[in-house]
């Protein structure tokens, strides 16, 4: 029978925070194949197969049911699919990897404080220029849904691969949707967050894929693991 698969971030600060969280619960992660290996073991849980992967790969694998459990950011899974809650459940919010997905505009827009203002500005801009108001983001799905919810009709999303906060100054977009932890990067780029412009308060979560191939053994292993992690 297949063992329980648990995917964890493979590098960077998130990996360190995951290891620290596990260590706090008395669980030691041992990477096989050295520092650059992509598999690991968890002391005391021989029937748990650990996979190390990027946060976005973990999100995709959870949504596709390719792994049983995984730790990744809520923003990543919510952006990747619209029916997240039917494909996975959030077992625990881990208190690290915090990042808010927010709507920000140039700080000189002193006439814009709320999403209702943004909706008006978008309509004005299309009427005056014939072009839609542009919002740069890599969160196209979350942004589209949030704009629909706030009746912002005359906008267009510009896909931004990186350095989104520089888009207004570069003339690529009028506003942005991006992640922020302290707001310092937005402030440094002369941007401000709208009063009701927080789309998602995200953090790293332990998630359980609903679509994975669950059987009695994997369910029992997961229950033991959750007990050890004090989640049961």
């Amino acid at each position, binding site marked *: 029978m297949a063992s329980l698969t648990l995917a964890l971030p493979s590098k960077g600060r998130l990996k360190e925070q995951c290891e620290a969280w596990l260590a706090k619960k008395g669980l030691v992660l041992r990477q096989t194949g050295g520092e650059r290996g992509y598999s690991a073991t968890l002391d005391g849980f021989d029937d748990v197969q650990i996979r190390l992967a990027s946060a976005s790969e973990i999100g995709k694998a959870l949504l596709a049911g390719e792994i049983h459990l995984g730790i990744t950011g809520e923003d990543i899974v919510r952006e990747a699919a*619209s*029916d997240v809650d039917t494909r996975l459940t959030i077992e625990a919010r881990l208190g690290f990897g915090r990042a808010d997905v927010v709507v920000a505009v*140039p*700080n*000189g*827009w*002193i*006439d814009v404080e709320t999403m*209702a*203002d943004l*909706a*008006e*500005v978008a*309509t*004005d*801009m299309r*009427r*005056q*220029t*014939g*072009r*839609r108001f542009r919002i740069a983001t890599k969160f*196209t*799905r979350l942004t*589209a849904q949030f*704009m*629909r919810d706030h*009746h912002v*009709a*005359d*906008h*267009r*999303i510009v*896909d931004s691969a990186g350095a989104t906060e520089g888009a*207004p*100054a570069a*003339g690529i*977009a*009028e506003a942005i949707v991006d992640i922020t932890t302290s707001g310092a990067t937005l402030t440094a780029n*002369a941007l401000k967050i709208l009063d009701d412009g927080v789309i998602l308060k995200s953090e790293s979560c332990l998630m359980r894929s609903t679509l994975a191939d669950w059987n009695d053994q994997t369910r029992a292993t997961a229950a033991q693991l959750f007990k050890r992690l004090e989640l049961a």
Partner: protein
Amino acid sequence: MNQETGPKMQAAWAALKARGGQEVALPTLLPAALVLELAGEDVRPRLYFASGPDGAELCLRADLTIPAALHYAQVAGTDHEPVAWVCEGKVFRAPKPGEDRAPEFVQIGLERFGDADRIEADVTVFLAAWEACQAAGERDLYVRLCDGGLLSHIIAKADLPSPWNQALSEVAGHKSALKRVLAQATGTGPSRQISALERTIAELEPERARSTVAEVLSLANLSLPGNRRLSHVADRLAARAKRAIAKPLAPELAETLSKLIHLSSQGSLTASLDECVTLAAKLGVDLMDWRQAWTLRLDRIQQEAPKALARAHFEALSPEAFDYYDGMAFDLAAEPNFARPVATGGRYDTLVGEISSGARQARAVGCVIRPARFGGQ
């Protein structure tokens, strides 16, 4: 034409062609940015995207109207050059959650550009759609007629007090934005406190207001990158403050506007059109020419297809989905809720201009038919 689509579709296609039109092949792959610019982000979840070898972001067409307008903008020699095209082919639209259908389906359509006589062109397109459905055995269809340009016309000419006249005319083409401004105008929308700066700005001449805003931005070290200029921010700040301190719109004016927005009578067509005339008159707008144009359309339809209007009703404002319809619009459906129309159509006089960034202009009206919905499917 695709032979796999069955006799009903072939009968519909023959009927559509009988109303005149040259067969034309339209592009399937379109620049994604152009489609999103024209149709809006609401269509994004329904689109299928592709990348070109040069990195260009493309999408598969989700309707026939945008590719037809794009094709016209590319091939027409002059503005308003008259052409009539019939077209057939697959369109690609992801099903909505819970919608059980294939992501690709065939549409057939008629698109007319540059007709000097708008009314006759409207009637021709409506009759083409009606006759195509009849030929396919679609009897007893419900007909919804709308006018996408009516509200804009009325509000632009209406006797409304400042600042509501400007605020309402700026959003007249948008059902949801119009409702939002109307709620503000009647004092039923969310109220907001205005700052001392806004109150000051509202009372200054535009030039003084702009220089005051410039001073504020400079003192606070705030920046204004991109396309929004100082004048936009200052003017909007003033307009917003004026709305916040303005006297609400008189209840009778607000009620008349609200009745127009929501006018959706299932009763007789002529009664609905007369009601529009009466309501517009209360706002100081004479709609007699408009009424006469609709009388002509309906008389012509009645002449050629006496049964077409038996189950017809009129709505003053197009449903939000028909963003680019700016004149007469219609849909034909087997069910009275119009959730799954077998044919839709309407006038889109500004689309060719928008698609070509103003390089080409053309009056335009067209319709599409969805054969997969024949027989109540």
